[in-house]
């Protein structure tokens, strides 16, 4: 893995997402801005030169708002970005903060009309007495301009904080999930949405779990999954009923009683769920592990990988400094053979499902000079300590990699480390995977 680029943004990155071709990479930040990167086409002169990602467009997606009725401030932080499958020359993406989802159109303009009869080049109206002949305006090339405009605003549908959005494979609908409800929208209709999941109890005293993530199946437009703070996954079929409160499948692993502690419930809360590209498997991330589930087996995951089990004895400290509430994301590679997730100290981990090998890498300025090859890192948990190992106590818990994304086809990964975006590429193994 070598570093292709690193970009420093002005605010903490809160979401990272490749589009379906991998040509575009969008990041959202805490300040409500979206930055889109585009991959440069690989130069024909230098076939070995990897296409780099450069800034394509930047725009302010959400602004801070104030709910006067509830005296609550609504953060402008972008929680999720999801690209729509491309259907014409323009690109569309959905971005959401805690309350409002917006559909943005990203289009290019590289020509402009010149030669108007009634206005001059600056757009000022001409004095009609100076017009002696008529001309037909012609399109002339201009510097590429990327225009972003909000096409739809889907608001006022969520009482609680929106944590996920997911575009359906039918390309017409999408869903948005908050802590207690999931709503289904049509992309063209903003004034109503359908509630498809509602786990709010009649008496809030009885609340025991919340929805933490939700995603549509990659090609079955009737299926979606949502995860809960109790560590369960529910697969729902929209054909079964209008309200999918009753799940079709419930994926849950019984708790290991030997690991019981004050914080068992917190660390079992699922922070992210992703369908595999094949649609056969689910990937979940809880505080200490990533798990792969087979849709056909509900009683336990088929694979469990320890991300940073050395933190298990430090849960109390992590509770005190709030790190135990960090929500890490997870990602599949294009062939579903490798899974990736972030950790602390700017480490991120990759697990090869076939070889069962795993690697820990670090996203940092030092290791990320262009073309620099990443060196595997190791956290030493006592016992033999090798050179360059990091001990658990010297981990920097303020440097956390919560958001990662994997290119849909190639071995290119985008890692968000606080306000820095790192892009790594693995050219050597790209044929292997």
């Amino acid at each position, binding site marked *: 893995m070598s570093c292709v680029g690193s970009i420093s943004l002005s605010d903490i990155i809160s979401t990272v997402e490749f589009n379906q071709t991998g040509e575009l990479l969008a990041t959202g930040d805490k300040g409500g801005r979206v930055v889109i990167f585009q991959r440069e086409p690989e130069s024909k002169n230098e076939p070995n030169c990897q296409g780099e990602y450069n800034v394509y467009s930047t725009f302010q997606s959400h602004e801070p708002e104030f709910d006067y009725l509830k005296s609550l401030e*609504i953060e402008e932080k972008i929680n999720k970005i999801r690209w729509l499958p491309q259907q014409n020359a323009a690109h569309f993406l959905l971005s959401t903060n805690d309350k409002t989802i917006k559909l943005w159109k990203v289009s290019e303009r590289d020509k402009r009309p010149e030669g108007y009869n009634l206005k001059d080049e600056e757009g000022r109206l001409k004095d009609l007495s100076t017009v002696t002949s008529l001309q037909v305006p012609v399109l002339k090339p201009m510097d590429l301009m990327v225009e972003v405009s909000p096409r739809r605003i889907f608001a006022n549908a969520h009482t609680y*904080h929106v944590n996920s959005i997911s575009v359906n494979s039918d390309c017409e609908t999408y869903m948005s999930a908050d802590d*207690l409800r999931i709503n289904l929208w049509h992309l063209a209709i903003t004034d109503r949405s359908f509630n498809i999941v509602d786990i709010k109890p009649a008496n809030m005293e009885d609340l025991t779990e919340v929805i933490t993530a939700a995603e549509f199946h990659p090609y079955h437009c009737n299926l979606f999954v949502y995860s809960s703070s109790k560590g369960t996954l529910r697969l729902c079929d929209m054909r079964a009923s209008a309200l999918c409160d009753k799940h079709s499948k419930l994926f849950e692993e019984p708790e290991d009683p030997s690991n019981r502690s004050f914080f068992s419930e917190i660390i079992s809360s699922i922070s992210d769920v992703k369908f595999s590209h094949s649609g056969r498997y689910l990937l979940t991330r809880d505080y200490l592990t990533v798990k792969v589930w087979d849709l056909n087996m509900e009683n336990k995951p088929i694979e469990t990988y320890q991300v940073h089990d050395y933190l298990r004895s430090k849960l109390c400290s992590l509770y005190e400094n709030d790190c135990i509430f960090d929500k890490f994301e997870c990602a599949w590679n294009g062939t579903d053979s490798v899974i990736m997730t972030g950790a602390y100290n700017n480490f991120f981990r990759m697990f090869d499902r076939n070889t069962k090998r795993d690697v820990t890498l670090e996203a940092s300025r030092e290791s990320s000079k262009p073309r620099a090859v990443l060196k595997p890192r190791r956290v030493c948990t006592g016992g033999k300590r090798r050179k360059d190992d990091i001990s658990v106590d010297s981990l920097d818990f303020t440097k956390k990699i919560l958001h990662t994304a994997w290119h849909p086809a190639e071995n290119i990964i985008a890692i968000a480390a606080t306000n820095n975006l790192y892009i790594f590429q693995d050219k050597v193994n790209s044929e292997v995977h």
Partner: protein
Amino acid sequence: MEFKVEAHRIMSISLGKIYNSRVQRGGIKLHKNLLVSLVLRSARQVYLSDYYQGVCLNAQTMDTAQPWPPGETMDSELDENDSREHELPHEVGSDVRTSTPERPGSPVPALLNDAVAAPQPVAPPQLPSRRCSNAAAREGEANATRECGALGGVESDSDTPSNPPAASFCRKRRSCEKMTTPPPESPLKKIKQQQQPTATTNTTTTTTTTTAAQELPPPVGDGEEEMDTSNVSSLISIFGSSFSGLLGKESPASEPGAEDSEPDPPSGQICCEQVLKNIAPWSTAIVAF
């Protein structure tokens, strides 16, 4: 013992988190607060199981036979919100009459006996409208809170008939008094219930280690739906005064529990007075918000 200390520490940390979540930008995060409340519940269970083991034997000696003043009623642990608001006086009264000590020697009601005995119990006929409220606290009436506390109900199912009655409007927190492991959902229930009321509704402050003067949540479904995590001050007040002695890091006699109540009956009264003394800072804190 180690577990107790650890549990105590975790409880205070959890309360701090809930408290701080009120001032967080973006509003209270339901998920995080739910997780924190689960931790709080677990820690409390561990702590109280140690606590009750210590005072269990002495509690029986502290029960005194006191007739229930007429008109005074105690609330009981009920699950229905709206109906309770109106039925309270009657239901509670009957509960008082019929309740028997299910757990002999339950120390908390015993302590409460003394707590409520100390101030003059007031019989408010208009019970639904009278509440120990943050508003009262805001008015700086520490007396009011104490009075409310005196009136605060004790869990009916763990009460003895000899316990002086408390104002019916105060709902008890059942799990607090239970000797054995409380039902998992009850603390959470109370927590969530406390989080429900909006600024316009009254909230109650707890007054003794065991009484949870709780305000009934507003009827669900009237008008625009609230994000039901808004009012945490009442939650803190419950835990605050419940554990006010326990959470005070510097107070030497901070634990109104086992050690004090063991020697002899009067110490129970001392405990309660200490607890009551410690209520004031929490009331003040609540007033500030």
